[in-house]
């Protein structure tokens, strides 16, 4: 199964021998932790999802945010009592709703404030944490019920922030946060729910600012955008904004493949929404090719850049006709584009002789030209391809098995 918590990543191996003092300290920590755990468990076994149980989950989750069952207990507490009405499809009857959101604010404010100095607005939590009772929110919904839900939702979002900052790769926190956000859609007026979701973009950007490749944060951002575009939030397309976002991420770090990837996914939609005609699409392609070539000129050893270049070239070759964003080019034009790219890559060889990605690009794109034209490589291409393969074997012996396979395939096409 894929990665999950509990595994050790990047922690230096130590002697693993504890002093007696350390051992006793551990035992004390264990005692406290288990005591807390026992309290929650005994309450759960009696189906006690009261505000007290809820507060205990806050404590326990701060010790251990990976404890997924406790996140579930927390959800049950909210559904069975704290939220104003049972959510659709929930079998929980409406319990005591005396549980006021300020309780959660109290329980979470301690650890929230410790991290708030690093928080940047817009922050979903900053608007209610610290306030008790009435919120002076201009968009505040009219009824007491929805106001209570709004406060609770904001408070829960605030609760997870310090935990996320501490454990940015913890699946369960992200999952809980998304569940809370879905509650906003189910329980709040659309305009209010939309504002909460909009603020989430700020959080995703903040997490990506701390770790530009955080897989969870990119996925989270994509999910938030999808929701903001959906009819449940009366949304409309955010493709232009998303594209601009990749632009800014790439500007600050050319080798951020996550940003290039995101860009590759947005382009087809972007051009459709711009109702781009053939000329506009070509102009767009030209600009992207110039941009990535320029980047490759600076960092020809960077795989991320070549992957994006491949994406553009593949859209010309038309491996996947549905995905291509330049459907109107003639075969001759496509071949022309490819040959131009090949020449540009050849120019790189003047400055860089020992970068295998250059030879790989030349090899691959030359094969594409032949495929497009439906022919075998001619004699001069054969010579080039063989020379590039020889270079690849020399520069990259790790992948010799692959070069040997390509050599075999090449011999087969030569007949």
């Amino acid at each position, binding site marked *: 199964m894929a990665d*999950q918590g509990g595994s050790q990543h990047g922690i*230096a191996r130590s002697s693993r021998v504890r002093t007696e003092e350390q051992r006793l300290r551990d035992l004390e920590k264990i005692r406290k932790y288990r005591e807390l755990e026992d309290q929650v468990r005994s309450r759960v076994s009696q189906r006690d999802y009261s505000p007290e149980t809820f507060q205990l989950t806050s404590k326990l989750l701060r010790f251990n945010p990976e404890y997924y*069952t406790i996140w579930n207990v927390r959800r049950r507490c909210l559904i069975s009592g704290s939220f104003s009405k049972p959510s659709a499809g929930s079998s929980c009857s409406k319990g005591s709703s005396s549980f006021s959101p300020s309780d959660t604010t109290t329980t979470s404010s301690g650890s929230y404030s410790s991290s708030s100095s690093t928080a940047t607005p817009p922050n979903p939590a900053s608007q209610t944490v610290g306030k008790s009772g009435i919120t002076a929110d201009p968009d505040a919904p009219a009824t007491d019920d929805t106001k209570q839900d709004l406060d609770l939702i904001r408070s829960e979002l605030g609760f997870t922030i310090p935990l996320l900052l501490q454990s940015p790769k913890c699946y369960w926190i992200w999952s809980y946060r998304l569940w809370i956000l879905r509650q906003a859609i189910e329980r709040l007026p659309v305009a209010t729910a939309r504002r909460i979701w909009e603020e989430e973009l700020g959080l995703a950007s903040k997490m990506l600012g701390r770790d530009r490749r955080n897989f969870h944060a990119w996925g989270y951002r994509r999910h938030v955008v999808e929701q903001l575009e959906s009819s449940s939030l009366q949304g409309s397309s955010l493709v232009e904004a998303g594209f601009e976002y990749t632009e800014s991420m790439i500007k600050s770090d050319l080798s951020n493949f996550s940003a290039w990837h995101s860009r590759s996914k947005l382009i087809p939609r972007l051009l459709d929404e711009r109702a781009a005609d053939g000329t506009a699409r070509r102009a767009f392609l030209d600009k992207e090719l110039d941009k990535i070539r320029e980047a490759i000129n600076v960092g020809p050893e960077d795989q991320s850049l070549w992957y994006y270049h491949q994406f553009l070239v593949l859209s010309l070759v038309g491996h996947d006709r549905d995905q291509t964003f330049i459907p109107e080019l003639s075969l001759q034009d496509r071949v022309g584009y490819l040959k131009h790219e090949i020449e540009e890559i050849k120019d790189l060889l003047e400055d860089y002789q020992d970068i295998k990605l250059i030879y790989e690009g030349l090899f691959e794109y030359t094969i594409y030209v032949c495929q497009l034209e439906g022919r075998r490589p001619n004699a001069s291409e054969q010579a080039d391809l063989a020379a590039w393969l020889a270079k690849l074997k020399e520069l990259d012996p*790790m*992948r010799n098995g692959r070069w040997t396979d390509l050599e075999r395939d090449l011999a087969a096409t030569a007949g």
Partner: protein
Amino acid sequence: MAAKFKQLPEELQLATSAHVKYIQSLDTRKDEYDYWLTEHLRLNGLYWGLTALHLLGHPEALPRTETIDFVLSCQHESGGFGAAPGHDAHMLSTVSAVQILAMVDAFDELESRGKGKAQVGKYIANLQNRQTGTFAGDEWGEEDTRFLYGAFNALSLLGLLHLVDVDKAVDHIAACANFDGGYGVSPGAESHAGQIFTCVAALTIAGRQDLVDKERLGRWLSERQIAGGGLNGRPEKKEDVCYSWWVLSSLEMIGKTHWIDKDQLIAFILRCQDPERGGISDRPGDMVDVWHTVFGLAGLSLLQYPGLQPVDEVYCMPKSTIARVLGR
């Protein structure tokens, strides 16, 4: 190859008995805080440890009866399993439970003392989103190709794959494919070695490898090997023993294992072991854990390191178990 590794310096020999002792010690560390903080992974941990022991040729190193008792004590009325007694049922621990029971040949006990195969199958099948074909991890959780793979893994071992809409699930995986031949966690997501493993393995179980662009994917996967011999999970990331397994097993599934340098990968994994106290870490010199121990050993097994039992690249379990359960 056997002769070649006999000649390696001592630190590059597999510390088999240390690894066995390390895994046996895992459940005795109750005076360590981490033992309690990781209880939500107990059943998964048992699967990792038991698989490691089977691959090391010491399947008896954990007592069979206690193993079965513990697994069954984690089962809920719904048929699903939690990570430990008192923990909610979840796809991940349910899959681990099925894998453990398969390894110790205890499906009969599941029937007689547990809630039975059919109930487990029902629990898993209920987590499928019938509109999109993908799976959630539990009644609350998000959807992820990890859970889809887990469902296929466990259901196929139980002989209950027909309980779910396989075609819909396959369509969903196809929608997660990227131009580089890889797969992401959901449609639109970047290719990632862990997700590639789950998607390609699920397609393999479904008999739909025809959907995989093997040339392109093989290229991407082979480029994960970096200086030092280890493999990373995405471009420009650090190498790691667990990612090495996902990349390697995916390469094996599409018949391209020879596209990387096997000897260098073997040497990298062996450099990550703690030869005295046992266990394998993500990178040389880091803390060991059972997660990296099993994936390190599985990698070595796939690379035919001498003395290890052969591992199945799709299930990450001994080939002998898969042969017995699936009647291959």
